[in-house]
């Protein structure tokens, strides 16, 4: 059987037939790097996940553009809009206080985020860098409060907000949201502060800086990615909050988006689906845009929060 190999450019990388090289066929159940393999490993699961994750948003979108008659017409495929209309959006802005709810939500989210950031930058620095009796216990105490959910607090808070005469006042939310924002952002920032070399700060102290100056001019700028992550989380959690604003805000002009939408676009058993979906889409846009720009930041924040503890 002296079939000669055809003469080929002698390359040491190309194994010659008959040598004992591992078979190029994938071993066992391992899926190789063929086109088919890549489709099975990557594209098929990714497309399936995208379909499931995004379908509700697609459904929101097309529902919000359907006319009332088309909305309830399943004789043709409901998955597409035949005659798109802006009727629901117009209705939302002319017949309801949606614009006002958006403003309220934004004001509360920005204010409570700023308060929480200020508190947690100071507290995070104190707990990460300064040595004093009880620091470690207080650090764990702050973490434990992160695990006390609003579900446990909303009833007594009703009494407290009444005593403070803050019903239907945005301050009731601006003051209570930090209770679930501060523990989390403090925890995240402690991780960041600890990762900054002590020497940087100590040399500034040697140069005569006070600790507060060192915090403001050296630590805070270096921890900026962490502060940005904390700000994003805090803003999103405030934007999405529901229980406190459901209970504290009864006047239509005091409501936030989630409360306004569920209490005024649902009347008894009547659901105004067109307006509801239009409002849901618009109310989701700010956080969706924020995250599409900062998704890498978010992932880094998760790593810092979860791994550095």
């Amino acid at each position, binding site marked *: 059987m002296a079939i000669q190999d055809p003469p080929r450019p002698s390359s040491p990388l190309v194994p010659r037939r008959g040598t004992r090289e591992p078979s190029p066929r994938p071993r066992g159940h391992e899926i190789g790097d063929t086109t088919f393999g890549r489709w099975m490993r990557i594209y098929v699961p*990714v497309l399936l996940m995208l379909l499931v*994750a995004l379908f509700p948003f697609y459904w929101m979108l097309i529902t919000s553009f359907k006319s009332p008659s088309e909305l309830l017409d399943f004789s043709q495929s409901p998955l597409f809009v035949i005659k798109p209309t802006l009727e629901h959006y117009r209705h939302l802005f002319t017949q309801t206080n949606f614009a006002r709810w958006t403003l309220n939500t934004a004001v509360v989210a920005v204010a409570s985020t700023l308060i929480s950031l200020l508190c947690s930058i100071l507290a995070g620095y104190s707990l990460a860098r300064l040595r004093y009796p009880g620091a470690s216990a207080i650090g764990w105490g702050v973490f434990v*409060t992160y695990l006390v959910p609003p579900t446990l607090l909303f009833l007594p*808070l009703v*009494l407290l907000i009444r005593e403070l005469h803050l019903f239907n006042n945005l301050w009731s939310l601006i003051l209570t949201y930090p209770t679930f924002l501060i523990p989390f952002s403090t925890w995240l920032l402690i991780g960041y502060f600890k990762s900054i070399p002590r020497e940087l700060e100590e040399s500034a102290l040697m140069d005569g800086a006070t*600790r507060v100056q060192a915090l403001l001019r050296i630590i805070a700028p270096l921890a900026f990615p962490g502060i940005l992550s904390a700000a994003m989380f805090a803003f999103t959690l405030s934007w999405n909050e529901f229980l406190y604003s459901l209970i504290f805000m009864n006047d239509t002009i005091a409501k936030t988006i989630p409360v306004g939408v569920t209490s005024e676009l649902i009347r008894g058993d009547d659901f105004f689906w067109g307006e509801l979906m239009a409002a849901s889409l618009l109310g989701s846009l700010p956080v969706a845009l924020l995250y599409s720009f900062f998704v890498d930041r978010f992932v880094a924040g998760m790593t810092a929060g979860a791994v550095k503890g």
Partner: protein
Amino acid sequence: MDTVSRPAQAAQAPFPKSHIRFFEREAPLGFLLLAPTLFMLLAFLAYPFMVGLWLSVTDSEVGMIGRFVGLSNYRFEFLNDPVFLTSVSNTFVYTAVTTVFKLVLGLVMALVLNQAFSLQRFVRAALLLPWIIPTVLSTLAWRWMFDPTFSVVNWVLTHSGLAARGVDWLGTPQTAMASLIIVNVWRGAPFYGISFLAGLQIIPVELYEAAKMDGATRWHQLLNITLPMLRPVLLVVLLLSTILTFADFQLPFVLTNGAPYSSSHVLATWAYAQAIQGGAIGIGAAVSLVLFPVLSIVTAAVLIVLRKQD
């Protein structure tokens, strides 16, 4: 310019000298910096929590502070309130079942996304959307998708031949619970997935290279490298998510609010129904505090795990 003409001195004191030396000592400064945080947490978290404990042993109603009644609110709930007992078991089922699904799906999602492919960044951002979007708003979309007459899910199921008849999603106790679980998993799995992905990306590549040299299959690499290295992230995500799911209010409130026939209440929605809709604040406080022992156990577990990692 001073700093230019006298460089030696400038190097010594680039920061203006402060005279408040007292606060340079670590303890006073430490507590001063903690003060705003401690004030917010004591005033709006610790104090209300204590008031809540007290409310649960009174017969308070909306607009009326009640008198001390001992443990009778708790006794009433456990002995005479079938909806409460249902909501306790629903809360456990909701938490346990969703956690298992989110864990498995999140792991799959992280492993798929950890491969190199184009548009990866876009896919990550898109898959995270369910978790980012306000729960109330996305849950409304699901409620519309589960509509008794105009359910698009049913339309797809029947028109694609996957099911002969549509499912009455929110109409029976079993399907209502299943719907709650589906929406919670849809919303929560991306958080697990992205967190796990972050954990996967810090596993050193050398470990996999060494394993490949030794002839380990992908499956062995997953069991012997990936999962053990992922353990810290996995535990933290698992425990934090358990707490949030256990006390979840928004999703069950918007999707079913107990319907049908108060069969799908969880503790959070039942506490709200009793206290705000029914006016019995004392009873509501007792119902919500039933969450507390379980939350404490989970919290203790989180602390032990985190301390071990330190």
